[in-house]
């Protein structure tokens, strides 16, 4: 029996003569309407204290990363930065639940997840700096390029996970999307392919309430975005996206299920984008300060501090270590982004194809001549 054989029966309604195939039961696929939470619940006590401390540390570092990147835009060192401030629990957990051979498929907002996977911030941020499209090696880091055309990375995750499964390799792909991205056709097609193929993929939708200025209520009328799962025949899970341990558990369960051959899962994490869409956006045009303030009260770091304190796990050393690591990262970012990168204009023609075409060779010569002429003028 091959990995695709399970598909090859035709379900026929039971009232037909000779029809036997049962239709799948929707009940286990439906998410609970109240999001999974760990903090403030008895479940918290079952977590490994080391994991909780690790999550805290990473949240603190992640917040600092977001702040420093935003500052770099003000200094003209980044062209644009879509901050994940307020969404750090999702970013950090997404990176943490994956094994080394698993793949992450981030959207343009998910540089923190990429950095949390171990990619150098300078490399993770070349796109937003404006110096190169993708600064890191996707194969080496098992991290797809940051994806800007919304939801288009979702089928890539499916294809990669499917390919790995065909090869018998226990690789899971995790695709990150926004609430707005769920409206795109590519989201739908990816989820359907994943379920039909039984591909080991996890779809993490960070529902931060807005797609730029458009609120969720103008994006979807569904009971929850996680409810979309049932229409594909995969389980949907709803989680408090600011509750880092809860996100970590829900994702871990989905990753393990995928790795064990159980197929894809759709996870909706309820969170909030505290900053504007990007540094170029004016969020006052479409949302109110009280709304933002309410979410500041539900900040993932605050929640985590509360959780650790309740368990007696928040000691000065941890606080200091986290703060130090955060500052070290920020300092490194400032230093690394201080200088303008040295870029080679001739790189325009690199890697368009494996071998440059005759046309590209001609055009490269043209640019080289232009550059030489410019240099001559500059020398004079």
């Amino acid at each position, binding site marked *: 029996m091959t990995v695709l054989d399970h598909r090859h029966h035709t379900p026929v309604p039971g009232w037909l003569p000779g029809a036997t195939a049962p239709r799948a039961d929707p009940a286990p696929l439906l998410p609970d309407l109240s999001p999974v939470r760990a903090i403030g619940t008895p479940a918290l006590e079952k977590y490994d204290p080391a994991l909780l401390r690790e999550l805290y540390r990473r949240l603190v570092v992640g917040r600092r990363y977001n702040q420093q990147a935003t500052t770099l835009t003000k200094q003209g060192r980044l062209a644009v930065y879509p901050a994940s401030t307020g969404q750090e629990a999702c970013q950090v957990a997404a990176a943490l639940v994956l094994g080394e051979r698993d793949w992450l498929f981030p959207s343009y907002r998910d540089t923190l997840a990429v950095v949390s996977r171990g990619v150098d911030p300078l490399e993770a941020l070349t796109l937003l700096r*404006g110096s190169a499209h993708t600064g890191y090696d996707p194969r080496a880091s098992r991290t797809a390029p940051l994806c800007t055309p919304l939801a288009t990375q979702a089928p890539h995750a499916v294809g990669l996970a499917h390919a790995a499964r065909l090869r018998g390799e226990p690789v899971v792909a995790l695709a990150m999307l926004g609430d707005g991205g769920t409206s*795109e056709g590519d989201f739908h097609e990816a989820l359907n392919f994943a379920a039909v193929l039984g591909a080991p993929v996890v779809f993490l939708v960070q529902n931060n309430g807005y797609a730029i200025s458009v609120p969720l209520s103008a994006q979807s009328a569904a009971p929850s975005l996680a409810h979309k799962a049932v229409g594909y025949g995969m389980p949907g899970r709803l989680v408090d996206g600011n509750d880092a341990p809860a996100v970590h558990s829900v994702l871990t369960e989905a990753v393990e299920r995928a790795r064990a051959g159980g197929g894809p899962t759709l996870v909706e994490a309820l969170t909030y984008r505290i900053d504007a869409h990007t540094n170029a956006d004016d969020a006052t045009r479409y949302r109110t300060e009280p709304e933002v303030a309410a979410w500041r009260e539900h900040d993932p770091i605050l929640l985590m501090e509360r959780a650790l304190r309740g368990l007696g796990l928040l000691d000065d050393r941890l606080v200091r270590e986290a703060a130090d690591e955060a500052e070290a990262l920020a300092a490194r970012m400032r230093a690394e982004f201080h200088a303008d990168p040295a870029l080679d204009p001739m790189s325009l023609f690199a890697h368009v194809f494996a071998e440059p075409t005759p046309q590209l060779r001609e055009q490269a010569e043209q640019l080289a001549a232009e550059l030489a002429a410019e240099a001559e003028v500059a020398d004079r």
Partner: protein
Amino acid sequence: MSTASHPSPAPTLGAAAVRNTSGARTASMAQALNSALRDAMREDPTVHVLGEDVGALGGVFRITDGLTAEFGPERCLDTPLAEAGILGTAIGMAMYGLRPVVEMQFDAFAYPALEQLFSHVAKMRNRTAGRLPLPITVRIPYGGGIGGVEHHSDASEAYYTSTPGLHVVTPGTVADAYGLLRASIASDDPVVFLEPKRLYWGKADFDPAAPVEPIGRAVLRRTGTSAVLITYGPSLPVCLAAAEAAQAEGWDLAVLDLRTLVPFDDETVCRVVRSLGRAVVVHEASGFGGTGAEIAARVTERCFHHLAAPVLRVTGFDVPYPPPMLEHHHLPGVDRILDAVARLQWEDRG
């Protein structure tokens, strides 16, 4: 940037194509487009705007600023984030007699809607023997030069100009932005209206009360006696700057602004090319298979014996759009245009 438009080039190339604009005011192209939408919506209740973030935000470029406030969400609608859905919904609205104006947020984000555009928008009138015209305007901010990251700077006009059934319009001046958008919305045919992003913020005088230009007419922005630069949209100011710089080299260059790529103004273009005998087509889209190929090919077909040199093209390179820090090497600039002018075989002239 030139402040004036003209319905058609002056009969003799010696006459400057400048019109007095009474009642003119100063505005950016973004503001002129916003005025055009507002005025069209005020005059015609069937005009509806829809797209991503066109409501409270006024669009990421603020082209729809204030429209929802004035006309309500029924007339200016924030849609879910799905471009095929937006254009498909607009098709249905047009079938019921409305006149939808769709905003695509950026050039590359119009691609999910291409099936709806190619298979329905471009064909519906023809498919139904004229019974179901689709007066839809699809506004697409296009091109680079604004420091945008990948997928935010595609010059995608070739996809539209090579699709029969679409009008393709692209203004190069503030006045044309207003006039051509009004004309596009008023058109009973679908129009792909390409807005040069990097010209959004440039200001100029314009007179909203001036008669609306018909679509389909090119205009001579600058007269000249040596050769003509044929261009449109984002490359117009670059060509005007090149013509200025060319004077120092002894060339007196005319600059022709096509304004409408489909239908193409063969008459005006050929008249100018024939009288000068030398032409360079300039656009920022990649050259191979670009709209400039059509322009060069048709001008050559029609003016062959008037040409002292082949029609040359100055375009972006045949590469994916580069990252912002390198884009100026990709985009045709004054020097690259003058290099091409220099190759127009002046030696033949003696």
